[in-house]
């Protein structure tokens, strides 16, 4: 079985699956249960400054987008940082870390953007023996109205400033958690790096209203007839998270900066994908909140099996492996030609490919009177829509047209050469090939 041991910023954990700073990691009881279930590490629910803790609403905190059979596809929440006192949290962190020395314990922190506030809290956190801190610059609701969370994460200068304080007053690794509620995630990531951050983690949750009650006309979750935007997470946000992760991994300013991947990790496969885009580990929340802590067992067994099948002996073997293949549109090979092909043995004649192509795409699928569906090569642009709407996996595939064959749509012979938009004759800014 593959070795899943992960060393992230020098912090060892038995596997790359950490629980994200969120309700599941709010207290000792939960975290002990998580470690017993097999989680490699936790990022403790965000601590605030000393004094009276924040209060939460006393009505619903969560809203969900459901798929078939009430599968949780997206979750949103309006919960704030920990509403328990700093002292209790610190005591509990100390006890848990002492009892689980082999697991990663990271403390998430959110205090005002004043040097003194950080100067006050960091030594106390350091005293717990926790392995590192994560700066919550991402929480998009409630705390951001008070000038913290996403309000900081949206101003690169603040990120850099606070990160610098943390590196000054704290000796262990500092992870900066980024908000996706921003135009270009590379800027805050670069700011964190300039401030001395050891890593970034992303994404935090996305501004969202998951539903509106059509009787009460209130956004949900509804508190006494009123709702507010919450933070969106779960499987639905994974594509957004992976894109942002890849941008940071690819940008010259931030390439090589360790990344902890967050956003909709639900299965081992999701985790593997984040890691191939440059993440050193992943953080999970919604999957645990949906299925309980036991879900990590599938993640562990699945990742191990896949690594064994691929011959990977450690996470390092495939970390960032997809980054070289992640590029800009302008560098995609325009000489590559594919055509859809329908396997008639697998086809169940539902006609979804036909409806999708005929109504919304390129009229490239023919339907016979006896419901046989075939691709019209002269029309097919290989858009892949038929592949994705077909209910039978691998029934429709995209077949590469070999060099030397003629593309029935364009009448041109497929060539082996690579050619992209930058040199295409239709591109007004094209650079003529010498």
């Amino acid at each position, binding site marked *: 079985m593959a070795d899943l041991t992960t060393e992230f910023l020098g912090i060892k954990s038995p596997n790359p699956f950490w629980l994200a700073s969120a309700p599941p990691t709010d207290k000792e009881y939960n975290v002990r249960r998580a470690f017993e279930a097999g989680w490699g590490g936790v990022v403790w629910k965000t601590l605030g400054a000393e004094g009276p803790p924040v209060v939460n609403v006393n009505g619903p905190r969560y809203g969900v987008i459901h798929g*078939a*059979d*009430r599968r949780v596809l997206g979750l949103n929440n309006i919960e704030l940082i920990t509403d328990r006192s700093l002292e209790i949290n610190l005591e509990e962190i100390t006890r848990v870390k002492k009892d689980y020395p082999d697991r990663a314990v990271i403390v998430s922190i959110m205090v005002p953007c004043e040097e003194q506030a950080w100067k006050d809290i960091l030594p106390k956190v350091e005293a717990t023996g926790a392995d590192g801190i994560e700066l919550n610059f991402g929480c998009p609701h409630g705390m951001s109205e008070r000038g913290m969370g996403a309000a900081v994460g949206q101003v690169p200068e603040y990120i850099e400033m606070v990160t610098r304080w943390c590196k000054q007053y704290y000796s262990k690794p500092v992870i900066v958690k980024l908000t996706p509620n921003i135009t270009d995630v590379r800027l805050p990531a670069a700011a964190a790096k300039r401030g001395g951050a050891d890593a970034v983690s992303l994404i935090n949750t996305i501004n969202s209203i998951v539903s509106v009650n059509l009787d009460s006309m209130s956004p949900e979750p509804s508190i006494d007839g009123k709702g507010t935007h919450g933070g969106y997470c779960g499987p639905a946000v994974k594509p957004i998270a992976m894109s942002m992760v890849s941008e940071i991994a690819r940008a010259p300013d931030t390439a090589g900066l360790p990344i902890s991947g967050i956003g909709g990790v639900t299965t081992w496969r999701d985790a593997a994908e984040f890691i191939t885009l440059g993440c050193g580990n992943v953080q999970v929340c919604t999957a645990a909140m949906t299925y309980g802590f036991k879900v990590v067992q599938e993640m562990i067994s699945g990742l191990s099996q896949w690594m064994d099948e691929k011959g990977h002996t450690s996470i390092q073997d495939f970390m960032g492996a997809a980054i070289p293949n992640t590029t800009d549109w302008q560098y995609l090979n325009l000489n590559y030609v594919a055509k859809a092909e329908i396997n008639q043995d697998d086809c*169940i*004649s*539902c*006609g*979804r490919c*036909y*409806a999708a192509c005929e109504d919304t795409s390129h009229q490239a699928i023919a*339907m016979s009177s006896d*419901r046989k569906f075939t691709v019209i090569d002269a029309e097919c642009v290989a858009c892949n829509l038929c592949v994705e709407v077909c*209910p*039978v996996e691998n029934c429709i595939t995209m077949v590469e047209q070999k060099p030397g064959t003629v593309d029935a749509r364009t009448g041109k012979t497929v060539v082996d050469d690579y050619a992209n938009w930058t040199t295409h004759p239709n591109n007004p800014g094209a650079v003529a090939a010498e």
Partner: protein
Amino acid sequence: MNSQMTPGVTARRLNDDSLRENFGDLHAPLQPHEAAVAADRCYFCHDAPCVTACPTDIDIPLFIRQISTGTPEAAATTIFDMNILGGMCARVCPTEELCEQACVREVAEGKPVEIGRLQRHATDTLMAKGVHPFERADETGKTVAVVGAGPAGLSCAHRLAMLGHNVALYDARPKAGGLNEYGIAAYKSTNDFAAKEVDWLLAIGGITLENGKALGDALNLDGLARDFDAVFLSVGLGGVNALGIDGGENDSVIDAVEFIELLRQTDDLATLPVGRNVVVIGGGMTAVDAAVQSKLLGAQNVTIAYRRGREAMSASRYEQDLAASHGVQLLFNVQPKAVLNGGSSTQIELEYTAVTNGKLAGTGETLSLSADQVFSAIGQTLTTDGGLVLEGGKIAVSERGRTNRSKVWAGGDCASGGNDLTVTAVAEGRDAAMDIHATLMGGVE
């Protein structure tokens, strides 16, 4: 109290609890969440094969999508728009041979979308609210007589009334509904559904129902054709084929149709007598309904004897399996030869059959079964043709239901074509109504 083993023919073989359980709903209705999950399996196929397979062309993908988006009432309207008896059809259609057989998921994984149960979920939801989803068009001043208030007649009458015509609906029986009321196994139409459905359907208005009036008796075709602008005949098949064997007149030989009717109309199943040993002759749905219900009433040994092989049986494989799962023995390639003796030791003698040169004939080899009751279910015949031209023993009609006589249309089991299914009768009634409408309005829309 008797038991299954009490000899002869007797009532009260089972206690009330067992009877109640046995004659409960064959398929429990889907709960809303079950319906949502079942609906989600529909692929919303293009030009869907299930629609093609439905004799009434219900837009199945659309109504299922309406269920999945939380609007079962809209789904019901989609169904009723094509099939006003969609509630009954959801219960009695052999979906395994129609929509569900054509479902692409049947092709893909052998498990079709549960179209029948979803249809029932939608129609039950709307009907439970007492809502009739259609309104009549402005009155046309035209009148139509519909003779026979079974599925074809009800469907035709409703559509005509909706289009603004006034309909006089006649039926020979004390209750409307035809085979829905009298001829379907009790566990397929529980809680008096057939009668409730008729009341709901008549809520469209413009239809006057007169019971106890039969063609050839209180009504005659010449009079109807004179008094009304059009006539639609949907009188069904009133006659029952006789066995035509030695001892066929024996008291122990009973029409399966009568037995089924008795089961449907009784107030107390416990009072119905049934034999310890029952043999049903036939291979259709009526045979299965009679056999299964005999078993459910407490008969100890029930056998369906069919003269051809399993594949030729008109009862679907699903119905055959339903019978077998209730403990009914299916005996193929045997034909009745004689009913022997009377009284408590009645036997039926069966002869094995074989097909030689395309002809079915007895082989000479026989077997005997104890048979306190023999139910005959070998088909029904037209009893009232109104002097119309026949085809294959039924009133000859065109695709639109026209008979050889002007102003007279026919549909349902009494008319040629079709397949004796409720859903087909509904389609024929509806389509004839559209043709009557077009004819009466002279092409004016």
